[in-house]
């Protein structure tokens, strides 16, 4: 970085070595869907390694959210921040992680502008592999965000009744849902023209999607029409599932709705994403 970009030794293409390399270009059998996706997942991890600043949004942002909402609303809503924490921390976890999913759309959008995307598209591989690769990298980010919030929560006094297993199961459910939800962003990443518009649409979806749910306040305090929206919002069910698992009072119906919502998201937006990807 400090030296020049062009410290090029005198290179003369050698016929023998190039020919030898070409002669060895016998292709192995094409990679399986899993192997190709894992290779792209590896790429996502390498990007995190080379550009670690991008982890800022899965560490600093969740910390800010947790502190802000706990101390701002805790006293008013639940009488004390301690009690509120039990209710709100799993919700904040869901909110933060779901919000970080939008970076998938940004990553896809900035990538298509670059030539490397064309190279991937001329490879005879399982077509969704590059997209799945993004999402595998993102699953790592979601896990990072979850760990950050949980550690902070424990410090602040969050004592989950569900124990370690309950907490792990809660994080697992959340990561699976976020993986499914991200297909919405891969679609927008391919559909929209600029990073800015992806950002704009993300906000339009995420703000109502996360705030108009049971994450911060119990739906019973809301007007009837709003309760209607909140009860069909899949994020409400995810928050309820995570909360239930972590606090040891899971309602299996919530888990079922979360599963259904995840499956529908993958089928609908996964299909749309791949249509756009093939047409691009």
């Amino acid at each position, binding site marked *: *970085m400090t030296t020049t*970009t*062009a*410290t*090029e*030794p005198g*290179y*003369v*293409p*050698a*016929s023998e*070595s*190039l*020919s*030898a*390399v*070409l*002669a*060895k*270009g*016998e*292709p*192995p*059998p*094409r*990679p399986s869907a899993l*192997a*190709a996706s894992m*290779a*792209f997942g*590896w*790429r996502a991890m*390498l*990007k995190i390694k*080379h*550009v670690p600043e991008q982890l800022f949004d899965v560490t600093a942002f969740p910390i800010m959210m947790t502190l802000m909402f706990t101390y701002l609303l805790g006293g008013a809503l639940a009488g004390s921040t301690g009690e509120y924490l039990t209710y709100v921390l799993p919700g904040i976890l869901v909110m933060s992680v779901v919000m970080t999913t939008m970076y998938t759309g940004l990553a896809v959008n900035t990538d298509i502008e*670059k*030539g*490397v995307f*064309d*190279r*991937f*598209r*001329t*490879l*005879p*591989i399982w077509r969704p*592999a590059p997209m799945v690769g993004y999402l595998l990298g993102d699953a790592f980010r979601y896990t990072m965000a979850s760990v950050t919030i949980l550690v902070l929560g424990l410090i602040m006094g969050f004592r989950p009744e569900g124990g370690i297993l309950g907490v792990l199961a809660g994080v697992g459910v959340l990561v699976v849902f976020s993986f499914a939800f991200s297909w919405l962003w891969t679609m927008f990443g391919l559909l929209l023209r600029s990073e800015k518009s992806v950002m704009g649409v993300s906000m339009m979806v995420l703000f109502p999607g996360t705030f108009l749910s049971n994450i911060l306040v119990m739906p019973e305090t809301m007007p009837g029409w709003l309760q209607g929206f909140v009860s069909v919002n899949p994020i409400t069910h995810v928050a309820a599932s995570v909360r239930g698992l972590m606090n040891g009072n899971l309602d299996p119906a919530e888990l079922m709705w979360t599963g259904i919502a995840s499956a529908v998201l993958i089928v609908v937006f996964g299909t749309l994403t791949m249509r756009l990807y093939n*047409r*691009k």
Partner: protein
Amino acid sequence: MVSEPTGLAIEATGLVKTFGDNRAVDGIDLAVPAGTVYGVLGPNGAGKTTAVKMLATLLRPDGGTATVFGHDIVGEADKVRGKVSMTGQYASVDEDLTGAENLTLLARLVGHRKPAARARAAELLEAFGLTEAAGRQVKKYSGGMRRRLDIAASIIKTPQVLFLDEPTTGLDPRSRNQVWDIVRIIVGQGTTVLLTTQYLDEADHLASRIAVIDHGKVIAEGTPGELKASVGAGSVHVRLRHADRRAEAEQLLNKILSVEVRLEPDPVALTARLSGTVSDAGAAEQAAKALTELAAAGITVDDFSLGQPSLDEVFMALTDRPATTQEESR
């Protein structure tokens, strides 16, 4: 591995691609013999990149058909992808990753397991003189290194058809020569190369056949010799010492060469496009005769050059207008 290629590697008939009102590719026919370098020559925005992207399965044609070694680019896209590889105009590698990581990733994507992929990456880096830069992020590479990495990435699995989209645009002369050498070696191993370029010179050096594209159409096709012959053998540029002798010199040149002589904006310069074909080797002779006559008439010539026909001249001859950059399209 690449069996002795015969017949046509690429065959396209009436390919069309439109972007809104812009017919970027407007009915292109191509027949690329296997095992050769085929040049697609044209100015910016002529439709070269769009045509190549269709052949490489990146864009779906709006009309016409094309096959790569007999496989339809739409119906059998996956089979085509198994045979081709493409080096785009802008680096088709990931700039955030290192050279080694890029090649390892692509080696994994053609089916190597991780250790084999690493080994393949290492031998390619070695052959392309990039071993020292292997651990550096690609964004810190020079233009020439990036281009070499890009080509290395395209031959991880030796392709039967390699598309090179303007492989030397923006490179310094040394890097350009390196790319030319690499292309010759790759073709020597049996791969068919389709190369787009803005430089007649480049197509001339590398390609055995050339298609000239303008406004999405093929306006001429043939061997470099045939093409140049169609534009004449080249141009004689003359600079006189005294501007007041120019009219006289113009008349003289016109008489000897029996071609139209162009007066340059520079008041002492003239250009005459030579007629005749390359095969009868008349260009140098005609020029020598012209010089002799000028000297005999006592007109002092300060500078003289005999130029190959340039892309501009090919365009002038084929379209009666200069090869200006047309509206940029994707």
